[in-house]
């Protein structure tokens, strides 16, 4: 599977083992929802991971517990990293319980990221579902740095209920921007929600873009990736202009342990971003 941007597969451990994590310190913890936190990390000493591209991920290490693949949802040029983590397993649970001053390990960045450069001059449709927004947020930061280079920006953000929305305040800030449109929708809500209720695909008819010159980035659960890609394809967005981010069990993140294979691809190395054209035939086969 080709398509998205090939990243340099540099290891984060310059003199040591390619699988050795680098110590980082938790600078702050923000609670997004009852089981999701956003960790801001600084390198503990001078060693740090190389600069990352939007869509890449790190293997984040909790001393004594283990590692988990977490997408990078922000960072600065002086080495700060931002990871939004949901408590889903042993390691991620430990990550959500860290407090400022705690040390953890990071190695990366790994994977192929979103092909943002190829989207210059085109309309961009960005669809995030559930915990799909964290891997997409760096895309928006890059676009904001160079807004005129892109056409229309349409963002659709979906979650289970309003209290499951991440980056809530930041999203409200994006709503106030006049250089993009953002629609937020949830699967169910109570009386205190005045926004849309319905699956993310219900927001696509209201999105304004020229299908032939649109690039779409979709991130979320696999069912949501498929449904959204199908809805965009139905509006004549070419399959090779639609990109999805996939998830698989990862142990090494360097294409060696075999766990993340998706037929011929290693999701850690050939993904996690794939073009829908390449991934689609396999997404329709059960348990590939």
């Amino acid at each position, binding site marked *: 599977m080709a398509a998205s941007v090939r990243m340099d597969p540099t290891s984060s451990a310059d003199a040591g083992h390619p*699988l050795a994590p680098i110590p980082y310190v938790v600078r702050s913890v923000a609670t997004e929802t009852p089981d999701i936190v956003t960790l801001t990390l600084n390198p503990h000493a001078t060693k740090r991971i190389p600069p990352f591209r939007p869509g890449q991920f790190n293997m984040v290490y909790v001393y004594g517990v283990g590692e988990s693949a977490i997408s990078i949802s922000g960072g600065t040029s002086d080495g700060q990293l931002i990871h939004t983590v949901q408590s889903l397993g042993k390691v991620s649970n430990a990550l959500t319980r860290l407090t400022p001053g705690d040390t953890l390990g990071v190695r990366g960045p790994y994977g192929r990221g979103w092909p943002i450069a190829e989207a210059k001059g085109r309309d961009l449709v960005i669809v995030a579902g559930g915990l799909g927004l964290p891997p997409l947020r760096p895309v928006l930061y890059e676009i904001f740095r160079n807004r005129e280079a892109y056409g229309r920006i349409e963002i659709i953000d979906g979650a289970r209920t309003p209290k499951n929305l991440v980056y809530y305040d930041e999203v409200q800030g994006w709503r106030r921007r006049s250089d993009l449109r953002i629609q937020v929708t949830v699967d169910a809500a109570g009386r205190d929600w005045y926004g849309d209720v319905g699956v993310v695909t219900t927001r696509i008819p209201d999105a304004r873009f020229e299908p032939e010159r649109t690039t779409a980035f979709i991130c979320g659960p696999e069912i949501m990736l498929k449904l959204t890609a199908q809805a965009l394809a139905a509006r004549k967005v070419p399959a090779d202009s639609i990109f999805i981010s996939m998830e698989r069990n990862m142990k090494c993140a360097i294409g060696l342990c075999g766990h993340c294979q998706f037929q011929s691809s290693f999701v850690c190395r050939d993904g996690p971003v794939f073009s829908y054209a390449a991934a689609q035939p396999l997404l329709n*086969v059960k*348990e590939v």
Partner: protein
Amino acid sequence: MVELNVGDRVILARGEFPAFFVALREAGYEVVGPTVRDGAIVYDRLSRVEDLPIGWTDRQAPGKYRLERRSDEALFGYNVGPFTWKKFLFPPRERLWTARKDGDSFTIEPEPTDGPSVAFLGMRACELAGVRVTDRVFQGGPIVDPGYAARRSRIFRIAVQCGQAGGNCFCVSMGTGPGVDSDVDLVLTEILEPGPHRFLLRVGSSEGARVLAHVPLAPANASEERAAASIVARTAGSMGRTMETDGIRDLLRTNLDHPRWDDVARRCLSCTNCTMVCPTCFCSTHEEVPDLDLAKVERWRRWDSCFNLAFTELHGVSVRKSGLSRYRQWMTHKLGTWHDQFGSSGCIGCGRCITWCPVGIDITEEVAAIRKSPGATTAKGGNP
């Protein structure tokens, strides 16, 4: 003491094999090779010629392996056993690094990669191909596995050209044997008849020449070279199985819903034997091993198998839940997508997976079944 050159062919008498062992030790090598243990021929450290499986052969069929006495005293008169050379290059359990608490933080100490030089005595042509495959996996890409690379650089390879084909062998179909063509340190062919019992040695490297410098040898004559060639030809003509490999990558890619997968799924136990005995399977998992007081934590890597249910676990659910999907993953990877990933087949035709499968599933038969009706789709559970 003849000065040998790469390409030279010499004869080692059976009686001088002990001298060959001595020469290997004096050259600084530990010898690892075949020996009989627990009813099988396994690979282990050898100290003398008598450790070899002298006069033994193996009888292999789907799901069957038995040792049998030969009527002669051949040293290498068997085919392949449950062990592979992989276990000495990519150990079943390996410590990758040790982390130690360091104030608020921790330091990582990679595992040292120094170790003994080892002579692999008795590598079959297919097994050499297997090592070439794992070389590509572990050290052929942008990130090199330090442990594998270090161990691999210290190996002295002594190949053996097979004197008989095993019941499950199909190296000819996979283009991996039985003749050894590559520049391996030493290539042996055991000549039992016409007598006397001796070995034709081909010097494949300067290190091979160095090791043999003080071993009593005689130059090989034309009839001995012919004898060795005809042994290899006879082996090639008596393969236990065949596999048609033409277009196999596309065949498997376009038949992910073939009904044959349901058929094999009814038989496969997901026991992982095939992946454990396969010379090229490389899947692994990582384990965090902390001390009780957490002053030290070790990261270990151990063999894993795509047949394990937890292999694809993601957020508590396995992506490949059914046995069908796991067998399909193994076979389509080994024979198909391996080409996309590494530029060759992952299968070397040794037949171990057929021998050690408790229900005797034969990968050559599975491929043939799909070839017979390509494009067929399963009646249930197919594409929505």
